[in-house]
């Protein structure tokens, strides 16, 4: 795992000291709120509905056990004993007190973490495939490149005041688990005909009020050109981006208004200049970074213990079937730990649970932990023979829910339970859906499905790329939920379609039940997933089910 250099350490410590001074000056009146607000946002501190909220970056979703324990300590000492993991591979603390924030940032710096650039119109936390370095289908571990981008973008003087926030996601696998097409820049590792790895560069994706999928501006970018090319994209955007209108300021609008072909031309033109300015220092740095991401010392052992448990223990088998993914190394598995226990808040983990996860990573997981954009925790490298023990420990900590990829594995943003921008709640909608389908015992029958909920048009819950998306709105002072269908955040990305009028708060769960019962009737066979059935049939029969005009289905 990457360790801070003296430069990183000095930079983060200096920032903590600066912010401590800024908080002190705010509290003694030397700074007005107007002056202080941009300073606190630069350090990840928001004001929410009931309290402040501190957003801490988890670069490319990777955490060490020591860092996880420190997050637990912060949750227990300065918050209400839990933290919320988000779709952007951040953790949010919902109850920090302003005078405590410098101490929290100091505690984060102690474990090489920070909250810098988790807000504001700068390059945000670079997100990555949460299976990076472990996935069986991976071309290359993308995290060294994410780390290179992190170092390069951190406090980059040219890119601190972009027209709007800027989000970069990277994946090393053909199966896109990083939603690259919904990011300002998406980077997908590919191989060229000579077998060399490089990046497909996608620009201009984004969700929010105008959801758009990004355009490929470069089919194959050699690895050595990564920084100059990304710099060229940002530089073109920095010049063209609509600073006059916040709602048109993201690069997706720039690409849309300028045209993908013209943007590509401008980026390539600028790239000639930026590339000439890079003298190779970035490549030397990259070599050092790569060494920090060397694979762990995988062991070679037999998997009899796993095979026996799988044969004899039904609960273990159910969990293994949903929560394990194929590892690149024989005998290993990737464990996804669900933070979606039915009825709980998606993405929340208590301090005690974080410690259990840290211990498990240390004992069984080569000291590696990941946070997924789907708000779960990953143990990326577990030898199969250790899985029964891991499962038992997870179960004891309330972390063994066997629902990864199923209906109750819902992404939900904080919504109006926390967020000051929300137009409706999202968490209780997720809680109710999960409990309801559990009670019906239908979610295994329904099979793989992505259900995502946002509490306002900003789309932090990725609802546009949910197979089923739910968007909470305020219709004349009442919570109202709009349903979109057919979205997809993977390599077959699509923006979901709005199907019809919205539903009142207590109508959402029955509507989703009608929709999914219709799917069960309509699918060709159990193996046809919801999204595939939707693609085959189009919206009409699902719309009929949602709006209760689907009686003919029962007759069919």
């Amino acid at each position, binding site marked *: 795992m990457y360790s801070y250099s003296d430069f990183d350490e000095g930079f983060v410590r200096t920032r903590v000291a600066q912010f401590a001074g800024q908080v002190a000056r705010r509290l003694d009146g030397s700074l007005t709120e107007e002056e202080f607000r941009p300073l606190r946002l630069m350090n990840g501190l928001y004001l929410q509905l009931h309290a402040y909220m501190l957003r801490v970056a988890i670069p490319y979703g990777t955490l060490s056990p020591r860092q996880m324990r420190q997050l637990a300590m912060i949750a227990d000492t300065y918050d209400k004993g839990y933290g919320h993991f988000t779709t952007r591979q951040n953790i949010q603390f919902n109850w920090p007190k302003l005078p405590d924030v410098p101490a929290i940032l100091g505690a984060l710096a102690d474990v090489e973490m920070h909250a810098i650039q988790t807000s504001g119109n700068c390059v945000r936390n670079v997100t990555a495939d949460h299976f990076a370095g472990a996935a069986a289908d991976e071309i290359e571990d993308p995290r060294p490149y994410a780390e290179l981008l992190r170092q390069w973008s951190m406090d980059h003087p040219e890119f601190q005041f972009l027209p709007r926030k800027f989000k970069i996601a990277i994946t090393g696998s053909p199966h896109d688990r990083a939603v690259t097409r919904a990011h300002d820049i998406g980077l997908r590792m590919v191989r060229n005909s000579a077998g060399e790895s490089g990046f497909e560069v996608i620009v201009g994706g984004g969700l929010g009020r105008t959801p758009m999928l990004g355009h490929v501006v470069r089919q194959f970018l050699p690895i050595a050109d990564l920084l100059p090319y990304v710099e060229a994209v940002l530089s073109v955007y920095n010049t063209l981006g609509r600073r006059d209108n916040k709602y048109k300021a993201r690069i997706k609008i720039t690409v849309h208004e300028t045209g993908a072909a013209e943007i590509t031309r401008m980026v390539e033109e600028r790239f000639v200049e930026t590339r000439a300015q890079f003298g190779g220092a970035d490549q030397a740095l990259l070599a050092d970074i790569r060494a920090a991401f060397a694979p762990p010392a995988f062991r070679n052992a037999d998997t009899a213990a796993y095979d026996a448990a799988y044969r004899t223990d039904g609960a273990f088998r159910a969990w293994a079937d949903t929560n394990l993914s194929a590892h690149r190394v024989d005998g290993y598995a990737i464990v996804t730990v669900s933070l979606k226990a039915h009825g709980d808040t998606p993405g929340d983990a208590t301090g005690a649970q974080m410690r259990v996860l840290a211990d498990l990573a240390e004992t069984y997981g080569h000291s590696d932990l990941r946070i997924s954009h789907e708000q779960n925790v990953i143990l990326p490298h577990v030898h199969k023979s250790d899985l029964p023990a891991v499962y038992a420990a997870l179960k004891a900590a309330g972390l063994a829910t066997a629902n990864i990829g199923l209906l109750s594995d819902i992404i939900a943003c904080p919504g109006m339970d926390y967020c000051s921008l929300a137009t409706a709640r999202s*968490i*209780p909608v997720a809680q109710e859906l999960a409990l309801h389908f559990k009670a019906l015992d239908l979610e295994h029958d329904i099979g793989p499905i992505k259900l995502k909920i946002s509490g306002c048009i900003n789309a932090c819950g990725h609802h546009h790329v949910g197979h089923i998306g739910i968007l909470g709105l305020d219709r004349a002072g009442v919570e109202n939920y709009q349903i979109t269908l057919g979205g997809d955040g993977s390599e077959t990305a699509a923006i979901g379609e709005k199907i019809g009028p919205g539903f009142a708060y207590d109508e959402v769960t029955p509507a989703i039940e009608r929709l999914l019962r219709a799917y069960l009737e309509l699918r060709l066979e159990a193996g046809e997933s919801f999204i595939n059935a939707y693609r085959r049939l189009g919206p009409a029969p699902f719309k009929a089910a949602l709006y209760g005009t689907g009686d003919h289905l029962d007759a069919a």
Partner: protein
Amino acid sequence: MSRSFTPKVVTANDLRLGDVVYLTQSGKWSRLHGEAHLFTDEDSANAALASAAAQSLVVVGAYLADAKAGPHGPEPVHFRELFRTRGPSNYAHGKQADLAAAQKVA
């Protein structure tokens, strides 16, 4: 002055704790919506907001929120403001817990 002015309370968050607060008649801040002063005309509401915003050592993010008179003082009109009087719905955190704890002590 608009004849159809919806009555308002002045609300904000406590600078240090972040907790939701309401401006009372005496110009102090209360944690309870029912103790807020209900402004029934636009000019006095705006004046109160201006003076509240000036108390920047005590509160942050002051604004006017629609409210109506009720048996135990002003009540929120919009669900957002109702949630702010309680705290989140997923945990018994925030006011709903703090106030219950305070009542036990009293």
